[in-house]
């Protein structure tokens, strides 16, 4: 049941969109979605790691002995995470500050290791690339959506611009930790509702 490259890409946007369908990578999803800016930043960083790791893993999958494959995957992923970390420090320091330890923690994001293990190590380079990109973009979209909801309600702004006018009293619960959990839970419910039909 071979899928085309396009299908590999598209499945990450809906069928297997993390974290809604693949319930993985919840920590960054909750932690960094206080504002849309952070959400997109985190999404892009993860996408970069995903794509690079998928590429390299699928290239090297023939060479790596299966016993130490997890260790190798971890080295590969950790390398790219450090690349992101350094680049972000150099060129987007404020974002780096906002995302804090969640940048190094991309390394333990189950999505990344999961894709390397479940997909890239068994597939050719181009499908792996498409898969990584699709899942990454899907993740970015999800983070953007969640952070849009939270920023709108919790702060009354979107990407920093006020949208409800000054009379709006922000529902600041949404940007606090409990609000993050409840917001994601309810969005998941909406996704399930949409998926049913």
């Amino acid at each position, binding site marked *: 049941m071979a899928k085309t490259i396009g299908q590999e890409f598209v499945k990450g946007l809906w069928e297997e969109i993390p974290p809604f369908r693949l319930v993985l990578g919840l920590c960054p999803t909750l932690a960094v979605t206080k504002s849309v800016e952070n959400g997109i930043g985190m999404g892009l960083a993860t996408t970069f790691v995903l794509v690079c790791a998928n590429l390299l893993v699928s290239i090297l999958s023939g060479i790596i002995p299966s016993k130490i494959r997890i*260790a190798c995957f971890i080295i590969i992923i950790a*390398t790219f995470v*450090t690349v992101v970390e350094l680049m972000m420090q150099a060129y987007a320091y404020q974002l780096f500050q906002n995302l804090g330890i969640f940048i*190094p*923690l991309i390394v333990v994001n*189950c999505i990344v290791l999961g894709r390397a293990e479940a997909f890239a190590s068994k597939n050719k380079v181009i499908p792996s690339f498409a898969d990584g990109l699709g899942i990454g973009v899907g993740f970015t979209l999800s983070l953007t959506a969640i952070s849009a909801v939270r920023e709108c309600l919790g702060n009354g702004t979107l990407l920093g611009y006020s949208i409800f006018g000054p009379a709006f009293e922000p529902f600041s619960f949404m940007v606090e930790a*409990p609000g993050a*959990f409840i917001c994601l839970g309810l969005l*998941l419910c909406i996704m399930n*509702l949409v998926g049913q039909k």
Partner: protein
Amino acid sequence: MGDYMVLIVSSMLINNIVLAQYLGICPFIGTSKKMETATGMAGAVVFVMTLAAIITWCIDTYFLKTLDIEYLRTIAFILVIASLVQFVEMFLKKSIPALYAGLGIFLPLITTNCSVMGVCLINIQEEYTFLEALTSSIAYALGFGLALILFAGVRERVILGRVPKPLQDTSIGLVTAGMLALAFIGFKGLV
């Protein structure tokens, strides 16, 4: 002594690793459907997190910092944690089979439990001394265990309720976790 009290209460309750710092949420949601699995996971995390925090602290202080290669921290820590988990698994299997029977299946999951790596990084970030790092990581681990076990208690009950279909499972789990976090806000300022 008082400082350590403050550190313990703040790491365990106020800045709870799951409910306030958003770390380790995947296993938190994943292993909380049954009390047995929750206690198993909690035990495994306490064990591994404490060990990992001590080892990574030493590596960071005596190796990375002295060689001035702190930028390799991420890669070093993850390798340490991954091999530590492997080692602990082999060790338990051989020498303490009873404990292995209880914790065994949770150990591999811990590699991708970001709370372990997270606590190691926090210890470095906060520039804790060795003793502080040890205290805080035990307190964080106990906080994780406490939250997980309390959550499992509530969740066992919620699962049996008549939750509407689209909300079932993870969805209602997250909402309930939110209420847990809400309750933990009550500990704010308590030291």
